[in-house]
């Protein structure tokens, strides 16, 4: 009798374990199917990233080309205004000795032209200074590209993990371009030169 009960217990236990294992297997299969379903969107995302990087590089190259075109024009304006300053200055000098009313009027006009040309020249230099934005935005874009390349590499590792060793032959490991940039480059939020000078002064005083 006791032996019969023991056999029934074992059967009950085995059946339950089997049922539990079947449920577990089923759950794992569903999970694997879901994971597999994620593979395609991840692959698509990974394939889109080089295009995004390409676009960022294109923006950098085009803003650089545009900045150079602006610099060409600014340099022409500076040279042109330099000539105007020089010639109007000569006119002021030539008319300086004459007390004739017409000469005095012309001298005043020449002095005004010189002043205006100097202002234009200074403004052209200010435009040139503002073009420093191109270096700073190029560094910001390089930083963004570098982050995209990191994501691309991580997605690649995920895809390799999905497919195991069989897929490694088909999936090409993305490469990272050598980029030089300051991750904190900013046109407006960087330290003020006065703060930098204060730091330098503290170091040199201590040193």
């Amino acid at each position: 009798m006791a032996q019969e009960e023991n056999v029934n217990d074992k059967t009950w236990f085995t059946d339950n374990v089997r049922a539990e294992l079947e449920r577990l297997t089923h759950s794992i299969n569903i999970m694997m199917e879901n994971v597999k379903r994620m593979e395609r969107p991840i692959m698509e995302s990974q394939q889109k990233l080089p295009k995004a990087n390409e676009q960022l590089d294109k923006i950098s190259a085009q803003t650089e080309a545009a900045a150079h075109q602006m610099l060409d024009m600014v340099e022409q304006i500076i040279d042109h205004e330099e000539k105007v300053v020089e010639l109007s200055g000569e006119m002021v000098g030539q008319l300086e000795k004459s007390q004739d009313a017409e000469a005095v009027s012309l001298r005043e006009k020449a002095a005004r032209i010189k002043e205006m040309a100097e202002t234009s020249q200074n403004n052209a230099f200010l435009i040139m200074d503002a073009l420093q934005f191109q270096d700073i935005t190029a560094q910001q874009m390089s930083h963004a590209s570098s982050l995209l390349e990191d994501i691309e590499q991580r997605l690649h590792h995920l895809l390799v993990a999905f497919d195991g060793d069989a897929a490694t032959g088909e999936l090409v490991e993305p490469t990272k371009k050598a980029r030089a940039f300051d991750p904190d480059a900013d046109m407006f939020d960087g330290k003020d030169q006065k703060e930098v000078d204060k730091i330098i002064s503290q170091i040199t005083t201590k040193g």
Partner: protein
Amino acid sequence: MADMKILAVDDSPTMRRIIINTLKRAGFEDVTEASDGKDALAKMKVTNFNFIITDWNMPEMDGMAFVTNIRQTPEFKGIPVLMVTTRSVQDDIVEAIKAGVNSYIVKPFTPETLKQKIEQVLASV
């Protein structure tokens, strides 16, 4: 000042052009450009420069490696160096000064700051 030979090192062609124009406006006519530390060292082997302006973040050889290299090279170690960079974190400034940079400017800079710093450095060496 006009006969000084300055070497401007920056990987950004736009920035090099701005620096050269600013220097010319300040009366420094003889300016040579280099795109990184490696290019600069090659140019320093054929020309004796009196002053160096260098960026920090550059490919091949960055500004810090470049400054360290010239401070360890007997024929270059006395050349004044001004670093012009976007890096404005205190630790970076300290690191640059300790590596041998004579002064430090953050981008974007004004022409007045550049001229003033060059004059200050030249007066101190």
